[in-house]
């Protein structure tokens, strides 16, 4: 026990003097979690609270285009500004830049006329199918000229698709209104009453979004709840930059030769490293969670809500940390130089993070990558944390994540043991 204590003290001293290692283990992940959460939060806000600036050039003089612009405004997602006159692509681009807009829409000339003609044609066909004959059946409308949407390439695919959906929905509203009016006029030979029109078009079924949590709470997830657990895991695995290098340094330096001639098994050394760095991972989690809880609100970010089951959170953090430590030691044992350990370590952590769903959600992955996620320890860590942080789960809910994580950790330990044996290090 005295040997283990002396070794732990030695490892702590060396760790505390490794300023670069400490900054890599603490400062970098903290910066990462703050930056990523801020960016993702601003993306949430861009779509939900802030409005996307959009420039509309209306070349049409009719009512339909005005209704379309009103509908786009009503969506609440856009901050609309208009430019007049026939705009070339260059002029439209300039207008977008001037107004700092990420989107631009050109409504073609005769939009209203064509929408009206199309609506009359559809209404006529509908009447004919009811066995009625109306004037509008005589109309054979051509296709409506397309709306042109310009967008800034910085817009992510997901945002662009939301924008497209929103504009399509506004367009649908305008077309439906025209069709309804035509149909009503053909049957009743008078205008559709405004009250009825509003009732028919606006009385849509509302969509209630309710997060399904295991504990029945209704806390809406946000960028903080998603990012803090994810980047805490990344930080834990990033200790490879210090621990992997430390194992290699000890191995390639003369100190290891001397250790092998002393009446103490090197496993004591490895046990000490596991204890010290496991405590480091716990400290990393505590620091990052504390920043999420107390510091994020000062940055205008949502505060982190800790899960109700704190004991489950501690257990998951210990198992995640132990897995990260085991992986780092495993890489350190097999690497011949510190450069190898650091290079392989950093790249492998990024790959494991990608495959594990830290950067792209696992549910969005296809085929091979979906299966590959299962062998990434980060995937199981993330699932366990999400169950606790987002779904309000308890310990029993994360057992299925902890078991595979535990098995992966044992595999790392076993491979480390084989590596030490093969390299005559124990």
């Amino acid at each position, binding site marked *: 026990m*005295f040997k283990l204590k*002396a*070794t732990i003290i*030695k490892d702590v*001293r060396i760790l505390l003097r490794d300023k670069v290692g400490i900054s890599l283990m603490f400062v970098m992940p903290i910066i990462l979690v703050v930056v990523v959460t801020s960016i993702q939060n601003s993306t949430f806000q861009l779509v939900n609270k802030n409005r996307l600036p959009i420039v509309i050039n209306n070349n049409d003089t009719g009512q339909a285009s005005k209704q379309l612009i009103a509908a786009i405004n009503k969506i609440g997602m856009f901050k609309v500004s208009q430019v007049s006159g026939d705009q070339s692509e260059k002029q439209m681009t300039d207008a977008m830049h001037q107004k700092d807009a990420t989107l631009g829409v050109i409504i073609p000339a005769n939009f209203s006329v064509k929408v009206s003609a199309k609506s009359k044609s559809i209404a006529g066909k509908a009447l004919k199918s009811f066995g009625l004959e109306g004037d509008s059946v005589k109309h054979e409308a051509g296709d409506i000229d397309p709306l042109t949407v310009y967008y800034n390439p910085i817009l992510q695919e997901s945002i662009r698709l939301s924008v497209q959906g929103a504009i399509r929905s506004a367009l649908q509203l305008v077309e439906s209104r025209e069709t309804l009016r035509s149909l009503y006029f053909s049957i009743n030979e008078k205008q559709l009453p405004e009250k009825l029109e509003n009732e028919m078009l606006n009385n849509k079924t509302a969509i209630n979004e309710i997060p399904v949590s295991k504990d029945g709470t209704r806390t809406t997830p946000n960028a903080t709840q998603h990012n803090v657990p994810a980047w805490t895991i990344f930080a834990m695995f990033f200790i490879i930059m210090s621990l992997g290098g430390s194992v290699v340094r000890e191995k390639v330096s003369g100190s290891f*030769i001397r250790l092998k001639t002393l*009446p103490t098994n090197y496993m004591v050394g490895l046990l000490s490293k596991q204890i010290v760095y496991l405590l480091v991972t716990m400290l990393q989690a505590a620091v990052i969670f504390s920043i999420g809880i107390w510091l994020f609100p000062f940055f205008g970010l949502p505060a982190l809500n800790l899960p109700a089951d704190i004991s489950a959170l501690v257990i998951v953090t210990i198992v995640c940390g132990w897995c990260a430590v085991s992986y780092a030691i495993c890489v350190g044992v097999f690497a011949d130089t510190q450069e190898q350990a650091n290079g392989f370590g950093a790249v492998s952590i990024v790959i494991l993070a990608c495959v594990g769903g830290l950067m792209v959600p696992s549910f969005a992955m296809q085929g091979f990558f979906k299966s590959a996620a299962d062998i990434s320890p980060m995937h199981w860590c993330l699932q366990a944390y999400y169950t606790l942080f987002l779904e309000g789960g308890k310990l029993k809910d994360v057992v299925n994540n902890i078991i595979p994580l535990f098995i992966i950790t044992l595999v790392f330990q076993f491979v480390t043991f084989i590596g030490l044996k093969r390299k005559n290090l124990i």
Partner: protein
Amino acid sequence: MAITGPLAIDVEDMGFRYPGNPDVSFSKLNLKVAKGERFGLFGPNGAGKTTLISLMTGLLTADEGHIKLLGQEVGRQNNAVNKLFGFVPQDFSFYQELSPVENLQFFGAWSGLDKKTIKQRTNELLVILGLDEVRNKPVEKFSGGMKRRVNLAIGVIHKPAVIFLDEPTVGVDVQTRHAIIDYLLELNKGGTTLIYTSHQLSEAEDLCRQVALIDNGKIIAQDSLDKLMADHKQESLEQMFLNLTGKDLRNDV
């Protein structure tokens, strides 16, 4: 040369070959070193000195024959044997980030000492080796000579009965060399066996009573220093060394 007293080292019919590297190998090697002896092992680069020391300290395992240290069979991670000897490798074998005190605390614990003994031995060694003033400074800031003294202190903290010294004075100034040699002679007076290798043949004349010359994995001469030089009609160890091993340059890959 017959040894009548108890043996510190007894290598008998030892065979060893590096897997995939036949350049350095031993076959039926025999070497006996008396307890309390000051023994020097010399040879050109690649002769097998470090390999032989590695075998005697259990860092490598012999393929055949046996190696005994104070009557106990040497083997990998044999804690009973490892308590008996100290090893001062050629490379700086300690943690450069730590101070001499911190290094001695750690290596003392791994050598099997208790807290009280570590403290007492640390204080003694730091004074003897002139490191007391810098006891709490990180070793990485030390000169080569100071690092050599730290290296030695760690190797002897547990007062081993046998000390293996692989070029313990390489790259140090005259003062440090004298300090180290004087301390080693002092230890030997107390009964400690010294097994020493170096390229500093003049230093060997000061330190060693018995020497063995090794080349191509074979011991080509072994006896007391005076007798060897008399037998080979040489005035210095260096001349005898060149006479026995030749003047060809050696590569040690």
